[in-house]
């Protein structure tokens, strides 16, 4: 019973972290239909920024992530602008955008290698290695802190999209670009805001990633499959769906690892995705 309980808790903690990494893609891919395959590469960049500042100034990693998210926001807005001018304006976006982001992913990876080298990087924080015990359940802070941060970030984004004017403009542009223009808002600026936001979340997600484990420039490739699967599983356009899907995936992986054999965990996760696509293609909370 102990094992079962801990498997669920561990799975939820892991899923929370996955949600943090997928949140940005939920905006860029789920709502804006931009196939940003370089999103994990931006996350890794966030990890490296966190590493640098943590080593130089000793600041808390999550704090560093938050402090740098405005900078990442600006970068995201700039990248979107290039993407827009090159592809969206001319209607070529689907495939060309994909190749563009592949190229960008390689550029980011190699730049990181050239600047930081290929050695594994880790951060130091007082809560890494500390475990809270609640009865039979273990809560390693190394996983718990990212989990809590992810929940807060998801809630913040959700509130932004649902309650603020700018946020609702983002939701609107996802649903109907022409209608938005007729309402007087500039869809390009709105999408720029949204994409910038997605990259800003990557900064925080990166800081969480390097808390959990060592990072080196090609680690981003391990997450490409997962993040797209989570966004699709949760339903394109639904932030809450992304969170739920991430938690489901985290728990599924942990269960398989605990009770059957970790080797099969990826097959189970993606198997769940395939089954969902076959049965309910719009995902758990998807509308269209």
């Amino acid at each position, binding site marked *: 019973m102990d*094992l079962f309980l*801990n*498997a669920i808790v*561990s*799975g939820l*903690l*892991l899923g929370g*972290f996955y949600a943090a990494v997928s949140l940005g893609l939920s905006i860029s891919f789920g709502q804006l239909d931009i196939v940003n395959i370089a999103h994990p590469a931006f996350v890794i960049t966030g990890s490296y920024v966190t590493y640098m500042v943590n080593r130089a100034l000793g600041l808390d990693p999550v704090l560093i992530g938050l402090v740098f998210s405005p900078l990442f926001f600006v970068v995201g807005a700039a990248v979107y602008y290039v993407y827009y001018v090159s592809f969206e304006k*001319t*209607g*070529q976006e*689907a*495939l060309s955008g994909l190749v563009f982001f592949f190229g960008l992913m390689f550029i980011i990876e*190699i730049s990181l*290698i050239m*600047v*930081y*080298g*290929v*050695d*594994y*990087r*880790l951060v*130091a924080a007082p809560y*890494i*290695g*500390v*475990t809270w015990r609640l009865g039979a359940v*273990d809560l*390693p802070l*190394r*996983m718990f802190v990212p989990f809590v941060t992810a929940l807060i970030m998801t809630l913040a984004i959700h509130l932004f999209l649902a309650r603020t004017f700018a946020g609702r403009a983002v939701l609107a542009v996802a649903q109907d670009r022409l209608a938005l223009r007729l309402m007087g808002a500039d869809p390009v600026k709105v999408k720029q805001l949204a994409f910038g936001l997605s990259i800003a979340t990557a900064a925080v997600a990166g800081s969480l990633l390097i808390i*959990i*484990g*060592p990072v*080196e420039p*090609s*680690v981003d490739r*391990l997450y490409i499959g997962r993040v797209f699967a989570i966004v699709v599983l949760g339903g394109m356009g639904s932030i809450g769906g992304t969170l739920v899907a991430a938690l489901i995936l985290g728990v599924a992986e*942990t*269960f398989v*690892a*605990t*009770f059957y*054999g*970790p*080797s099969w*965990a*990826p097959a189970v996760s993606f198997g769940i995705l395939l089954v969902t696509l076959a049965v309910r293609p719009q995902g758990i909370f998807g509308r269209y």
Partner: protein
Amino acid sequence: MTRTFQSKSLPATRRQVLRTAAAGGAMAATSPFWLNLARAADAPIKIGFSMALTGGLAGAGKPALIAMQIWRDDINAKGGLLGRQVELVHYDDQTQPANVPKIYTKLLNVDGVDLVVSGYGTNLIAPAMPIIMRKGMVFMSLFGLAANDEFKYDRYFQIMPAGPEPKIDWSRGFIELAKGKELETIALVGADAEFAKNAVAGARTNAQNAGFKIVYDESYPPSTTDYSPIVRAIQATNPDIVYVGSYPPDSAGMVRAANELDLQTKMFGGGMVGLQYASLMTSLGPMLNGIVNYDFWVPEPTLNFPGIQEFLAKYQARAKGQGVDPLGYYLPPFAYAYVQVLGDAITAVGSLDQQALGDYIHKTTFNTVIGPVQFGANGEWAKSRTLMVQYQNITSNDLEQFKHAGKRIVLYPKEWVSGKFKFPYTEAKKA
């Protein structure tokens, strides 16, 4: 998906860009030709190889290259080999096996190298073998696990001190240490990747031969993020011994999870790659105490071979600011040694004849920076020197402490023991 084809006017500038790009590409492609012409005049001895400078194995490949460059500079300072300067010609294989055959054909057929050595890692050594064998070249090899078992090539020499039966010898020491302690059960776990799988397979054989009962035997995908479910599943079987075969990220993950969940077992460690790297040692710090792991060279007084301290000083100076392991204890001394053996053989034989070199290397014991090296019939070390070390007395996350003796005590083989085995793990990890 709908696509609309619109005709766009192409400004002349973009066309020009494409043209100049093509011209630039053509020039870049033919530049080695011009360099080779220039080199022909000096006739240096060229040693060619591929090395992982990007991709998954670059963390070890880049330091290896630095070590080899140190050897080249040392040798050239003394006048070179056979009176000729030595030159290293290498290409980045990007940790992709498909790149290896063409790199070696280019080295041999186009660049005209006189000698070849291998890249780092089994899957980057094996693809070169058919070409090397066809040309009958001597092939010094850098850390491939049992890569010659299938090819059975008589001019292959492996510098990794695994021993004549690499897959078994790797974990033999660990199981030997366990044998003296009245233990019964063992848990085996490893990454789903070449080296780790082989290490665990060897441990399985050794454990079965020693009469241990295997209570857990699983592997995990390298993309695993959280290792606590695995450690918990292992704990549920209450093993006396836990043998792990892992790569750097999973090694860190397993050690952290074991500490966070307070793993109760009597012996923990085995084949964890990465615990020898400075970045992981400083990050994990005191969490390493009590772990018994493989290693090849540690700064213990029993392993103070002639030349090693000078080499390490040079390496550490060059490694600064390169984004590689700052200490260089793991692969670099062996990368130095494998070209050192080749160089010494050439000097002794007095020529570049591959047959003569091969025969000479087979029958000679070399004195290198990593101590005496002797090869067996299959190209592996005649006698295993895979060390088992235990992390002890680590109290902080400071880097300096690892430069001195006393933190990684050699427990096996007998000839190199430098301290006492602290047993069991639950006690040993406290100090």
